[in-house]
């Protein structure tokens, strides 16, 4: 078999094994379930309120937005933090010491991250159906939109996660990516429409993928009448595709360069030095 194909297949199997490992690890399961549970509780209490200017449930509007946010988080921040952690424990050096190991590693990671992101979406979607009304779940076009937004969202955010994960060497600095993203969530209309914000703030929010992922998910799951409360009064599918596509192109251009640079610099003494630092942190 051709070595590249062998590595691709090994990478897919790697994703499968990591999925099994992560779903049989208590700490990981807690990390997946806790935010989901917190979101569901939030939506439960929001179910009585309505989106301003309509009689539509605010909880039902929050659900799709939160799904979009979850994709952005799963794609970007979780991948970035895994890369940083696995550089520290030597997983990446191991991949580097294996023929075509980096390719296998990345394919495994992308498989793992996308599956976890999609499963988390289902995890939030299904329980919410029992107490939220008005979502368009019977429609085929809704699922079609959900699918393309989710896939494009992952393609836009995973490479960005790889870039951040490669640039950050110390796990402590993950906050540098985490905090601005938290701010963006507040800006991006995930929990409340941003129509009332000043125009420049709306403009900032619309540069980043989180806003568009939220919008795309709302367009899939909310009735068409709800488009009226969005900026511009429409679902703006074309713009969603354009902005997410632009981030995908940027990420896919940058990621290989940055990943290669990071991989080139990995060596035993760097891993040892990081371990020393980690020991000092703990001790």
């Amino acid at each position, binding site marked *: *078999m*051709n*070595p590249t194909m*062998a*590595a691709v*297949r*090994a990478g897919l*199997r*790697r994703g499968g*094994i*990591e999925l099994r*490992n*992560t779903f049989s*690890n208590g700490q990981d399961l807690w990390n997946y379930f806790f935010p989901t549970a917190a979101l569901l509780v939030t939506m439960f209490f929001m179910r009585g309120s309505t989106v301003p200017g309509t009689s539509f449930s605010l909880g039902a509007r929050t659900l799709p937005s939160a799904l979009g946010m979850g994709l952005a988080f799963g794609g970007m921040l979780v991948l970035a933090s895994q890369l940083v952690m*696995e550089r520290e*424990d*030597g*997983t990446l*050096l*191991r991949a*580097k*010491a*294996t*023929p*075509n*190991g980096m390719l*296998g590693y990345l394919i495994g990671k992308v498989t793992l991250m996308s599956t976890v992101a999609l499963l988390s979406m289902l995890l939030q979607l299904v329980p919410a159906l029992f107490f939220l009304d008005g979502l368009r779940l019977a429609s085929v076009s809704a699922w079609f939109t959900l699918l393309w937004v989710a896939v494009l969202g992952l393609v836009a955010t995973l490479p960005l996660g790889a870039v951040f994960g490669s640039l950050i060497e110390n796990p402590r600095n993950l906050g540098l990516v985490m905090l601005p993203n938290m701010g963006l969530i507040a800006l991006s209309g995930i929990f409340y429409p941003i129509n009332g914000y000043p125009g420049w703030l709306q403009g900032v929010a619309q540069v980043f993928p989180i806003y568009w992922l939220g919008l795309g998910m709302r367009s899939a799951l909310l009735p068409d009448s709800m488009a009226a409360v969005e900026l511009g009064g429409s679902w703006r599918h074309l713009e969603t595709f354009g902005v997410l596509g632009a981030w995908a192109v940027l990420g896919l251009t940058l990621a290989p360069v940055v990943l290669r640079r990071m991989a080139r610099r*990995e*060596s*035993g*003494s760097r*891993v*040892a030095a990081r*371990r020393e630092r980690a020991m000092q942190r703990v001790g």
Partner: protein
Amino acid sequence: MTAVELPGVATAPHPPDEDLVLDVRDLRMRYGTVDVLHGVDLTARRGEVLALLGPNGAGKTTTIEILEGFRLRSAGSVRVLGVDPGRGDERWRARLGVVLQSWRDHGKWRVRDLLAHLGDFYAPYATGRIARPWPVDDLLDTVGLTAQADQRVARLSGGQRRRLDVAVGIVGRPELLFLDEPTVGFDPAARREFHELVHRLADLDETTILLTTHDLDEAEKLADRILILGGGRIIADGSPDELSRRVAGDAEIRWTRDGERFVHATADATGFLRDLLREHGDRVQELEVRRASLEDAYMALVYEEESGVRTGRTDRVWQQGSDR
């Protein structure tokens, strides 16, 4: 070879040799303005076991990382399995095995899953002579981890973890294996088993092995040849026996005669004893001849080098001073 050899002295070019697994000539490494390696020469043939010794900071890690292709050298010619490690491709990578000290990876994986998974990457690189990868059950048995096959890596003991690292290092049946202080944290039984494994790899599979260690006893047991790195160059290269002989040529002889103790150091212990016994015969009691051990040799060489380097440094400082 003397310890006061000046950097920059050109070595005579060697003829190229197909059988050389490692062929390093005049390897230099500089970090910023600090020279870490100035002119390392070393070679290894197929199936040879080399121990690289040296005090901390002598450049062992840098040398090995350059050979592994993890670090780019500043100058010099390096051939590892006939390939420049700075340009080694994946096919070349598949012929190497690397065992480092600082791996704590794949903690959530099961031992068997990890070995099978990493082995998959080597399958396309099997040749008529070398079947790759090493079958997992066979490999588990070889490193003594059969009982832990289904255990999570994070739950292994320190010694078991090291054995797993060795298993990962050899899963692709490497032609050249790098072992960085492989037996740190082993109990004596595990250490002996590991030594047997190294012998088996070198003798049966003709694996060339380059190991670093601070344990001189281990180096003596395992290595065909010992290289001592001091002050950024190889200050000694030879079999353990040759090294002990060359450095401290003097043997120490102790005996008592008529209740009195005597100590004598000589290069020709046999001749001295012949004369001693001819002269005093039965009156010589409690005779003891002590040859220099590898440890004596190591200490002497490293001391010589370190004092030599100090002289070298003062020279350089003096030259810079006079340039101004």
